Every structure is written in structure tokens, then in C-alpha cells.
């Protein structure tokens, strides 16, 4: 990733940006890097362990980051979609951030337990990737790798759940959601969860109780997933952040699938494409309405 490092050095030393948000090797694997000095660009890396979606750090209300000044950010194609989302939803301005795109052929599901990209180890979100090359980038790095290995595990899980009876599905989700401790890590790690005040914290009226009970956990995840419908970019930061390993990816992917089928919308890295819930078509299906 010499070119990326050189580009970062140039941006920093010419004062184009004050901080380069990229990936570095940390004590427990790859993590976000905040490079502010040209001499530190050697830390920047990019490989199949770079699973994080760094655009979460572009949330304009993260004061400890905005104080660093104008950023450049390293994005994979999939991450560029949440960058587009942030631009579309007027959270950041396109020309206030330098986008360093990296061509990507898939990342690992769990970099801690595997290093080679295979059909077993690849992240489920990489299957059928349409944005191996982020269009939104100001500069592009790396060769275009082969398409990522195919891992249909998640689609199979969703299909299996759909085959169950309603009671079985309920049982499954009750077991999962019962574990939720309402730390809201799923929200904090999500690039598209940027509300000034989350519904979960509103008290007048209190829609979602603060105590971690099955009912309130279910209300919380239903609300979160619905707020993400048509906005979620399937980066799976929520699932990765969950200390209780709740399969949140199944929920967001299922909803994304429904959005795709009903409204022919897929998350793209183009901020000018309107999101499906800011619009409608007169002939939208209404088979469920009497």
C-alpha cells in the first residue's frame, strides 16, 4: 500500500487535510488509524482484515474527531455507500472530505480466527459485491482483485428462518433478543446512526423502556432496523460491535432484501440516488392492505 501511504503523506504535508482516517495494525488486529503527521503514514495498511467501516468516524457530532480538522478517509466500495448516505442525508459535504478509495476483493468475517480469504472465511456481505471499486473516490488505490469468494451462509440462514413456522421464528428471535443488554453498541458503531437524540433515549414519551427486558429489547431492535430500512449499507458494524453476538446482520439483510424486492432499491455509493423512504411510487404493492 505504498501508493496509499504516499498519497496520505502528500495530503498531510501539503496541508490539504489535517487527518487521514485509515487502517493500522493495533494490539488486537486491524483498527482505525488517525494519522495527523506525514511521518506516521507508514502505519497505513490495507488488507483483507480491514473489516471496519471508517465512515462511522465522519459523524459530524464526534467532536473529538472534528477538532482534528479536515479529514481524508480510506473507504472500500461498500463503505463508500454509507459515505454516500451521509452526503445524501446532509451530514457531511462531499467537498469537505478527501476520499481515498481502495479496490477490494472481499474481507474476512472474523480476522481474529482466520487470515486467508476462502468461501468459509469471507464476510457474508462480500458475496455478490457490486462496488469493488468505490466510484465516490477522489483517488483510487490498488489493483482490482478478483471477485470475492461466494458465501451464501446468511441467505441460507434467512431462508431457513422463513421456512419455520411463526412460532418457531418467534422462539428463535426471543432467544436472541433476550440476550441484548441494551448497551446500544450496535447504534454507536453504525455509520448511519447519527441522530442527535436517539428514540431510545427519548423520555417524553418514553417509547422504548431503558431496562433490558425482552419486550423493550424487541422494541429497540424493531425500531432500529426500521430506521435503517433503505439506509443500511450492510457493513455489519452493528453485528461486529454486539458484545452479545446477536445476529443483527440477519435482520438488516432481511429488511434490505424486502426493500430491494418491493422498491427495487439497493444501497449504492451515489449520493444523488434517492433513498426509498423519501419517495414512493403510486403503484407500490399493497397486497397486505385490506
Amino acid at each position, binding site marked *: 500500500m505504498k501508493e496509499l501511504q504516499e498519497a496520505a503523506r502528500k495530503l498531510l504535508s501539503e496541508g490539504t487535510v489535517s487527518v487521514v482516517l485509515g487502517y493500522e495494525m493495533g494490539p488486537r488486529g486491524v483498527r482505525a488509524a488517525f494519522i495527523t503527521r506525514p511521518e506516521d503514514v507508514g502505519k497505513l495498511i490495507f488488507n483483507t482484515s480491514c473489516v471496519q467501516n471508517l465512515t462511522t468516524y465522519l459523524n459530524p457530532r464526534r467532536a473529538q474527531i472534528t477538532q482534528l480538522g479536515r479529514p481524508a478517509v480510506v473507504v472500500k466500495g461498500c463503505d463508500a455507500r454509507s459515505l454516500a448516505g451521509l452526503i445524501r442525508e446532509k451530514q457531511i459535504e462531499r467537498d469537505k472530505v478527501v476520499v481515498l478509495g481502495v479496490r477490494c476483493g472481499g474481507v474476512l468475517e472474523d480476522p481474529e480466527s482466520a487470515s486467508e480469504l476462502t468461501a468459509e472465511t469471507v464476510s457474508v456481505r462480500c458475496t455478490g459485491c457490486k462496488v469493488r471499486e468505490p466510484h465516490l473516490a477522489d483517488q483510487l488505490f490498488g489493483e482490482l482483485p478478483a471477485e470475492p469468494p461466494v458465501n451464501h451462509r446468511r441467505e441460507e440462514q434467512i431462508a431457513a428462518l422463513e421456512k419455520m413456522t411463526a*412460532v418457531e421464528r*418467534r422462539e428463535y428471535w426471543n432467544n436472541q433478543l433476550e440476550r441484548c443488554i441494551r448497551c446500544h453498541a450496535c447504534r454507536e458503531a453504525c455509520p448511519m446512526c447519527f441522530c442527535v437524540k436517539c428514540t431510545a433515549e427519548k423520555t417524553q414519551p418514553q417509547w422504548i423502556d431503558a431496562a433490558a427486558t425482552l419486550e423493550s429489547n424487541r422494541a429497540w431492535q424493531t425500531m432500529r432496523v*426500521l430506521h435503517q430500512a433503505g439506509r443500511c449499507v450492510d457493513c455489519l458494524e452493528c453485528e461486529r460491535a454486539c458484545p452479545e453476538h446477536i445476529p443483527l446482520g440477519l435482520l438488516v439483510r432481511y*429488511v434490505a432484501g424486502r426493500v430491494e424486492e418491493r422498491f427495487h432499491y439497493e444501497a449504492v455509493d451515489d449520493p444523488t440516488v434517492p433513498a426509498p423512504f423519501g419517495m414512493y411510487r403510486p403503484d407500490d404493492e399493497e397486497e397486505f392492505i385490506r
Partner: protein
Amino acid sequence: MLSEDAQASSTWSPKIVAFVCNWCTYTGADLAGTSRLKMDPNVRVIRLPCSSRVNPLFIIKAFERGADGVIVSGCHTGDCHYSTGNFHARRRFAILNDLLHFLGLEEDRVTFAWVSASEGNKWQEVVNETTARVKQLGPATVQTGGAA
């Protein structure tokens, strides 16, 4: 006097909350009433400006607080008092309905319907059908997933 539980088991009758729009369904429900159409007395109507005012959390909260069924109703598409409110609402309801299904929650307990101001008859049908369906499903408890 019977305890609440005993009462519930012997003479249980479902509680159904209806979120209706002010302009069409509320007027339609009113028409059903003034026309003396016979309806099950289980429905509590909550009037909202528009079906697009219905936040999914309204439905979830209704179940959490003891509702056995929920009706969501507004103007037919094209008739919205605010022109496009129910078109937007329809998109949200579609995904909500799908999600309820995926979570294994009884989507049968939730009825979505378009009822215009002149459709007193249709309101009667929606109320009676929903009540009959919910009666068949039995009381919703949060544990059985009645909670939306």
C-alpha cells in the same frame, strides 16, 4: 369479585386499538356508527391527522400495554388529505409488516386497511373481521409475541 386473571379467562374479550386518519377512516367509522351498523365493541379508536403519522412504535407500544390486536387505517391512496401522506406510509407499513413476519410476531393481529369517509360498511367489516381473527388467536401476551 373475580381476580383479573379469572375474569380474563372466563370472559376474555380482545382489546383492539385502531390508529385511524382524521379525514377518511375516522369519518367512515363515524358513518358506521351513525348508520347503526352492528360492530364488535372491542375497538378503541385513536384519531391521528394521517396514516403517515403512525409510527411503528405506536403499534409496538399498544401491544406492550395490553392490546390484543391493532388496526391501522387511512384514506385510500390518491385520496390523502395531504396528497401523498399515505403513499409514504404504505412503504413503511410494507416493511414493518414484513419485519413482524420475520420476527415471528403474529402479523395476523395487525390489520392495515384503507377506509374512506363513505365506507361505513367497510369499517364495519374491518372491525368485525379483525375482532373475529384476534378472538381466534386468543389473548396476546408479550411473551407469546403478541407484542407486535
